[in-house]
């Protein structure tokens, strides 16, 4: 292990302070509650019960679902990379006509997901979908239910989860020194060789990071298998949720969660190892901005254009249909038949004029924003320390901070309740249940692993001599952090915060356990309004809420990404949005910014 030994860390009062607060937080909100819930489930009477394992391993369905979840996770790790790299290349690397439009199409996954996304795909490829109708004309013998099972789930989830590629890989790509590409060209390398031997190896660290996320997504798949998996391809998450909600079967849920969690940690460890061996720091002090590459082979060019636009259609059609169907009545949505005269504003009027009105939106926005800002703000310091000091202590802390990835959020919420429904010295003798703070704590903890990983990566790309330069001028640690490091990672932090914010807006699993009854976030209201058992308008409301959420998340992404991207672009430099920085997940990104700006003024660099 490189970096400072554990003992030297203890000499810094700054690290000691952060460390103390962190230790308290981890102990109080990560370890204690989850240990409680695990002990309660596995040691119901104080002695270990092997019942859960016995039950699970003898259940064919559980084993098959578990297998399916793993299969999906592994397959998704591959397919998301294939599709994700492709869309990143056509929007950022190759010269493709209309790449801006393509980008917007591919970016639709930023703003929606979940069950509605799966439903959107079903409208198109399901047995009554337009594509199926078309295919039936072409291939008369086709089974109208062709779009189901493993293949359908994999396809939908692949297209739905390329968000991370669009954010992080695209940015890492921007950090590739264009001169290396020119050098390779000069040496006779083909477009394909350059991609394979020069560009992709530089993206490796980022690809590892997003692969972990894809793997996790596959492992936790819920709505796509439910909607499209059919009889043969169901995954484990629905079973975990069912068992979590049944007090007598909670041990099964916990065991399944621990199995998935162990797999996650294993994946994390493997990827960390791979990452260590394959991180390439750019050797150049000056790098030049990437220029888009023309695909010289005309046949390949046409093929890539065709594939890009086909994917564009795949990405955008569901969104368009969801927006359209949000104006249709519940029966039309359920039967998948749309007619122009059935489109009204009724759904929106109903959703927006109900007694609670816009209040849940406001509550969710405040909760999500607070949680996003606190998680990112707090972890900024932690991530820096973990990234800078590598020893067994920081490694331990890092693994502890990943606990929320191991347990499903419902169990996390239960753990908090069990631990803090009575005065507890860990939180100064306060009772947390029934307060508005407990949900905030849950929101923050759930977002810790993702935030930490992404922040750490963005710190990795910060030139350490900057920090040393400031320190040598007498600046205190915190001052250096605030004035030197923070501005550098702030764009990344803002982007991570925005992603966190978006993902918590419609949370249900945690809120249902922890929300204060008078301060109910959106997820609960959506659930109440959309549960199939509670009325036909419910499904229509789901669509309305989805569209409204798309608007909120779209605005968030615009505020963080779109606006600043343009502002920077107008400065004469290369438009390098803040999402740039999470891509600093790739330490390969060029650390020197000012040189680049200087170069941008030279006519040579003007494309």
């Amino acid at each position, binding site marked *: 292990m490189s970096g400072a030994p554990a003992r030297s860390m203890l000499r810094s009062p700054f690290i000691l302070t952060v460390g103390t607060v962190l230790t308290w937080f981890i102990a109080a909100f990560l370890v204690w509650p989850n240990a409680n819930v695990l002990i309660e489930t596995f040691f119901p009477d104080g002695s270990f019960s092997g019942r859960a394992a016995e039950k699970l391993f003898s259940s064919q369905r559980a084993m098959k679902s578990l297998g399916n979840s793993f299969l999906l996770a592994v397959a998704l790790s591959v397919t998301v990379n294939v599709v994700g790299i492709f869309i990143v290349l056509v929007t950022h690397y190759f010269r493709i006509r209309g790449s801006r439009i393509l980008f917007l199409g591919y970016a639709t996954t930023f703003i929606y997901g979940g069950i509605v996304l799966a439903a959107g795909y079903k409208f198109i490829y399901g047995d009554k979908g337009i594509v199926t109708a078309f295919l039936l004309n072409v291939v008369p013998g086709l089974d109208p239910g062709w779009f189901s099972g493993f293949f359908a789930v994999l396809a939908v989830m692949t297209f739905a989860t390329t968000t991370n590629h669009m954010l992080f890989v695209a940015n890492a790509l921007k950090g590739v*020194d264009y*001169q*290396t590409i*020119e*050098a*390779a*060209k*000069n*040496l*006779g*390398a*083909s477009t394909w*060789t350059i991609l394979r*031997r*020069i560009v992709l*190896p*530089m993206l*490796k660290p980022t690809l590892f990071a997003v692969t972990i996320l894809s793997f996790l997504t596959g492992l936790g798949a819920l709505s796509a298998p439910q909607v499209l998996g059919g009889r043969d391809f169901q995954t484990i998450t629905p079973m975990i949720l069912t068992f979590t909600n049944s007090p007598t079967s909670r041990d099964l849920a916990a065991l399944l969660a621990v199995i998935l969690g162990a797999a996650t940690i294993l994946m994390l460890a493997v990827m960390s190892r791979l990452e260590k061996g*394959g991180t*390439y*720091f*750019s*050797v*150049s*002090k*000056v*790098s*030049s901005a990437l220029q888009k590459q023309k695909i*010289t082979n005309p046949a390949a060019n046409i093929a890539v254009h065709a594939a890009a636009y086909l994917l564009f259609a795949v990405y955008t059609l569901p969104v368009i249909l969801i927006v359209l169907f949000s104006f249709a009545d519940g029966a039309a949505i359920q039967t998948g038949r749309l007619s122009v005269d059935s489109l009204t504003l009724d759904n929106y009027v109903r959703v927006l004029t109900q007694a609670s009105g816009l209040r849940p939106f406001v509550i969710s926005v405040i909760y999500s924003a607070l949680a996003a800002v606190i998680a990112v703000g707090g972890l900024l310091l932690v991530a820096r320390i973990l990234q800078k000091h590598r020893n067994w202590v920081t490694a331990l802390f890092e693994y502890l901070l990943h606990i929320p990835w191991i347990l499903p959020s419902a169990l996390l919420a239960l753990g908090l309740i069990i631990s803090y429904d009575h005065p507890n010295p860990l939180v100064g003798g306060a009772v947390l249940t029934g307060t508005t703070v407990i949900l905030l704590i849950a929101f923050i903890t759930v977002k810790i692993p993702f935030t930490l990983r992404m922040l750490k990566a963005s710190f990795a790309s910060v030139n350490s001599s900057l920090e040393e330069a400031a320190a040598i001028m007498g600046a205190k640690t915190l001052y250096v952090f605030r004035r030197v490091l923070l501005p550098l990672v702030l764009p990344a932090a803002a982007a991570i915060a925005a992603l966190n914010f978006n993902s918590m807006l419609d949370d249900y699993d945690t809120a249902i356990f922890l929300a204060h009854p008078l301060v109910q976030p959106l997820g609960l209201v959506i659930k109440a309004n959309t549960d199939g058992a509670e009325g036909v308008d419910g499904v229509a409301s789901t669509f309305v809420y989805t569209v409204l959420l798309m608007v909120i998340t779209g605005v968030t992404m615009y505020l963080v990404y779109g606006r600043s991207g343009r502002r920077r672009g107008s400065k004469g430099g290369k438009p390098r949005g803040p999402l740039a920085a999470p891509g600093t997940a790739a330490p*390969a990104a060029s650390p020197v910014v000012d040189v680049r700006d200087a170069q941008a*003024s*030279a*006519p*040579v660099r*003007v*494309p």
Partner: protein
Amino acid sequence: MIRLDNIEVSFGDFIAIPQLDLHVEPGEFFTLLGPSGCGKTTALRTLAGFIEPSAGTVHVDGKNVTRLPSDKRQVGMVFQNYALFPSMSVRENIAFGLRVRKEKSADSDRLVRDIAHRVELSDEQLDKNVAELSGGQQQRVAVARALVLRPKILLLDEPLSNLDAKLRHQLRQQLKDLQSEFGITTVYVTHDQDEALAMSDRVAVFNKGVVEQVGTPQEIYDHAATEFVCNFIGDSSALTPEFVAELNRLSGAGLSTAANSYLRVEKASLTPTATGGTAAGGAAVGLSGKVVSRTYHGLHSRYVVRSHGADIRLLVREDGVVHPEAGAPATVYVQPGHVLQYHPDTGAALAAQNRAAQDQAAQSRAAALP
């Protein structure tokens, strides 16, 4: 060996190079020199095939390569930051072009070892990661990578600009030695006049996309063809019309007083003999003035002497003789032939024999100036 004819390069509305003609002879070390943004790198990249000119042709070894991609031009290039592939070892970097060409691996190994030996990279260094090498070693890898394909031309894009002064001097020599050893036609881009003068067989001085002058280092130094070249290369003092008029009066030379006039620092003296020699510039005449400042440099002192409104900068060897201090009166000795004169509108050099003839015209024009 290389011929650029009527090259025009534009980026959208911006014309980076309006019209460029260059000829580079075989085996020559040819330098494109100019300040940043002058178009020198654009010219090099046009030659390399990374930029397609909007007009004109590029010939390499008699073959028109204007529309050929970079790798079909038989040019090797060393980039400003060397552009080494960080994901590969030194050996893989050097062998990259060979692998792309699908050379047999035995041949490839031999060629890599051979070239590595010639640029003095050890076998041990071949297996290192490029990030582990020093700047100088990285440069040698970049050169080896470019040369292993046996290109007809080697292009070097400011390869020394990111290095510290000492290393720069050392590598400058190394590059020059490598070039002479391989005898390869080399086009070198730099903004450092020192480098250009020391390394080149010939230099083309660029300004705003236009070649101001092509010549040997001595030509461009001693006979800067334009006012820009004169100012960009070397160190000189601007002369006032009064000073020139006094010089004419004392020496009888027919220097134009309306032209922009300069004198190289080393061509002025405080003693009549110091610039003696063969007196190519004619007999030195002394102009009276006053020492404004003196800075001591050990080997020599730099003086600024004000004379007839002009601040004449000059060097005085510290040879143990007592020299005047600031504030003291002094006489500046100048040979009229060393005065460089440029047309105030075009910036073109005024040839000595034309000066008298042009004097009249220039004078009337200068009179018309506000």
